[in-house]
């Protein structure tokens, strides 16, 4: 009998939970988790506090690396998957290694989204998705006094709060398209602007952000409508896009993310998707929904693993808890308390 080999692509909260669950449910199987990042699984929601020194790096990690070895989970960090053959059940890594699998969970997470009009200025903007990003923030914050945040996704509010704690001058341009995949409606916009202003954040009205220029080593000039604003650094927070580009020709059904049924199955036998990269079908509302946030990711990772192990668990979400704005449905597990 061929040994079962479960592979998880992605070492984020969903992938990590999937690996631990699989190990518990199928003790005799090989479990391999692959991630292009070189760090162990961490809690991305703590990154803003890490940036300002409220949380130490060791507190970011969900488990020490030794934990995986002890559990018999093969952790392959800093290694990039470039192709998956779902029918042939083979994964190809960028160093031409081929891994065979009997089951696969895609927990690819997302990468920071920068709206297309801002692409020319991308190099001058800081995002905060990884520990490496956080280290760049720490380095830069030591040199500047003021920060302009543009966007308005979940992370942006936590960053603003953390920066105020650090004594930085924080200004904010709320973009109605920031909270991908959900667009702000007027009510949410006003609520968020009010809360930010009350805390000491300067909320700037902006119809169009025209450009970002470097003025000096520690100074940027941002052109907002017809005004020019001088700031130390700019943070861009427009949500995440699922990191699924390498799978576009793989035969998977991909829209905003990987389309899966209510059991998180992709349509290929033994292949599941979980976390930020999945768009999940809901039989009651007869539509797909996405999830955002740490708790949701962990929960979906667990469900994908249980189903891979032979279970029949539905990604259960109450229709009324799904956030619905402009054709997009989302379940947001943590809306920060600002």
């Amino acid at each position, binding site marked *: 009998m061929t040994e079962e080999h479960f592979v998880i692509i992605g070492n984020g909260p969903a992938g990590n939970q999937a690996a631990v669950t699989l190990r518990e449910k199928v003790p005799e199987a090989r479990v391999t988790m692959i991630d292009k990042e*070189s760090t162990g699984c961490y809690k991305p929601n703590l990154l803003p506090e890490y940036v300002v020194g409220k949380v130490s790096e060791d507190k970011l990690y969900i488990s020490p690396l030794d934990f995986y070895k002890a559990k018999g989970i093969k952790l*392959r*960090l*800093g290694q990039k998957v470039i192709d998956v053959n779902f029918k042939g059940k083979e994964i190809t890594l960028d*160093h*031409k*290694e*081929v*891994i065979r699998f009997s089951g696969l969970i895609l927990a690819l997470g997302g990468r920071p989204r920068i709206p297309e009009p801002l692409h020319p200025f991308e190099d001058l903007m800081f995002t905060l998705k990884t520990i490496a990003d956080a280290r760049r923030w720490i380095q830069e914050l030591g040199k500047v006094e003021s920060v302009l945040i543009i966007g308005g996704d979940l992370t942006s509010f936590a960053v603003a709060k953390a920066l105020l704690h650090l004594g930085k001058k924080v200004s904010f341009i709320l973009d109605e398209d920031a909270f991908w995949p959900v667009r702000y409606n007027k009510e949410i916009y006003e609520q968020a602007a009010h809360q930010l202003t009350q805390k000491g954040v300067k909320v700037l009205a902006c119809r169009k952000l025209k450009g970002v220029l470097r003025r000096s080593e520690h100074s940027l000039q941002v052109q907002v409508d017809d005004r020019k604003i001088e700031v130390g650094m700019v943070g861009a927070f427009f949500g995440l896009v699922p990191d699924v580009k390498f799978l576009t020709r793989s035969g998977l059904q991909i829209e905003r993310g990987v389309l899966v049924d209510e059991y998180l199955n992709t349509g290929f036998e033994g292949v599941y998707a979980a976390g930020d990269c999945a768009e999940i079908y809901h039989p009651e509302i007869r539509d797909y929904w996405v999830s955002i946030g740490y708790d949701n990711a962990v929960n979906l990772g667990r469900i994908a693993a249980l189903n891979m192990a032979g279970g029949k668990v539905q990604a259960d979400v109450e229709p009324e808890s799904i956030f619905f704005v402009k054709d997009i449905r989302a379940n947001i597990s943590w809306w920060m308390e600002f």
Partner: protein
Amino acid sequence: MTVEVCGMSGDGTIAAGGLLNEALSRAGFSILAFDSYPAEIRGFGRCVTRSRVGDEEMLALSDRTHVLISLDDEQSQSRIPFLAKNSAVFFDNNPPSYIPEERSIASHVEPGTDLFGIPLADLATRAAGSARGKNLTALGGFAAVFGVPLEPFQEVIKKKFMPKGEKVAEANLKSFEAGYAYALKTFSDRLKKIFVPAKKAKGPEKVLLSGNVAISQAALDAGLELYFGYPITPATPIMEYLAKALPERGGRLVQMEDEISSIGAVLGSFFAGKRAMTATSGPGFALMTELITHGIMAEIPAVIINAQRGGPATGLPTKTEQSDLHSAVFGGPGDSPRIVIAPTNVSECYSYTLKSFQLAEKYQTPVVVLPDFFLNNRVENVPLPSASEGEKADGNIYPDKALKGKYTRFEITESGISPRSIPGMEGYNFSTTGLEHTERGIPNYSPENHMMMTEKRHRKIRSALTDLPAPVEFSSGGKLDVGVIAWGSTFGSALEAVNRAQEKGFKVGALKITSLFPYHADIIRGFMDRCEEVLIPELNFEGQLANLLGHLHRKDVLRLNRTTGIPFPVSAILEKIEEILGETKR
């Protein structure tokens, strides 16, 4: 940190390791490096070079590797258990075909390992038209990631390949530079630059030398005129070096039909007043032992290098061991005392070989210099060795002019040393023989004569103690809980273990023994008397130094013996010290 290059025989692994050592030495770092390769000539088998790099003198190899440069992933997998946490691995990320998981080095490393995939063969082919330069491409990647300047690498590549023609040198330079440029660009956000800023070594000029080259150079500086030998690992590089260098200085090197004729020719040369040497390993030394005792009986000098390897018999030709101590000290028929000295590092390979010529002449006896494979083959950057006129001088004690015509070759003296005549010295004629003989060299088997002459020969060797290097103690003095006594290459590991134990607050010390016979019993006993426990780590099973010195201690010495074929790990000695201290405290 320790850098390893690992590949299959024929990948250019040893060449890459050598260039790495030389470049880093030029950049101002201290180096201790050692190669491990298969016994077979070429074509298969794993080659590994290990280089410990730092800004202070290195005593031993480290137990863990911090950077692995893989030229063959399947071979390099065997090195993964020796990687330190958060180590870096360089490998070819574009092999000729897709490879299954089990053959990929990336699938075997622990999480936390920094992987640097570089298309080594592709880059080398594009840069120089051949994948053969992939070893240099890998070095280029290493240099870029760790912030080592290009220049020292470029210099050593030119130096190595220019003799093969400008095109060859250029191709290798291009391969190196391709790896450097690729890594600098690809890994711009992961550059380590953990090296201390490059600096020139303090103090005297340093050169990168192997133990074998140091031995060869010492023999040349001592005025070696004749070398006779038969090739054998790990002594062959001595013969190779001298085959070129000795004739350039007017000397002669002859490859003999075997080791017996080699030692015979060495004795013949010294008998005629010419400095000569042979170098061999355990199996060859075994063949020499009868004639060595002929030198002892007939009081003829000789210098013999016994480069120890794993035994017995053909044993482990390319592995290190310290198991020829018994045969070096006692090998051969009869009561046959001789001088045996063992260096502990590359500098001592030079100084002890140099000294052995004077000792052999003064005490009219074969002198065995006893390095081990790890010493012969390792390279260190050491202060440029040189010999003073006094160190090169003739060591013979010639007879007084007043004795002309009345010369007694084997005259009984208080020191046991009889003034020596060289054949051709008019008025100082003598007979000589391998038979027991009288003071005049006439065969004689009477009980009284044999007892007298045996005692004379032993007294002579004992008197050599005044000229032999005394044991050196490394401790804060006073009473010690554990004293570690070591010889040969193991001493470096022992001293590093003791230093680490001292840093932990333990009352421990180390004693370096380089004169194995005769040995400084009083000094050694004095050290042992101050130690609660004495530990002797050795790369042999029998505990040969412990057997030799154990009787000097008031209780049993503790032994730590390994026959792994690899240098003694510092950690093994440190663990043993801690284990002993744990037991002492209980």
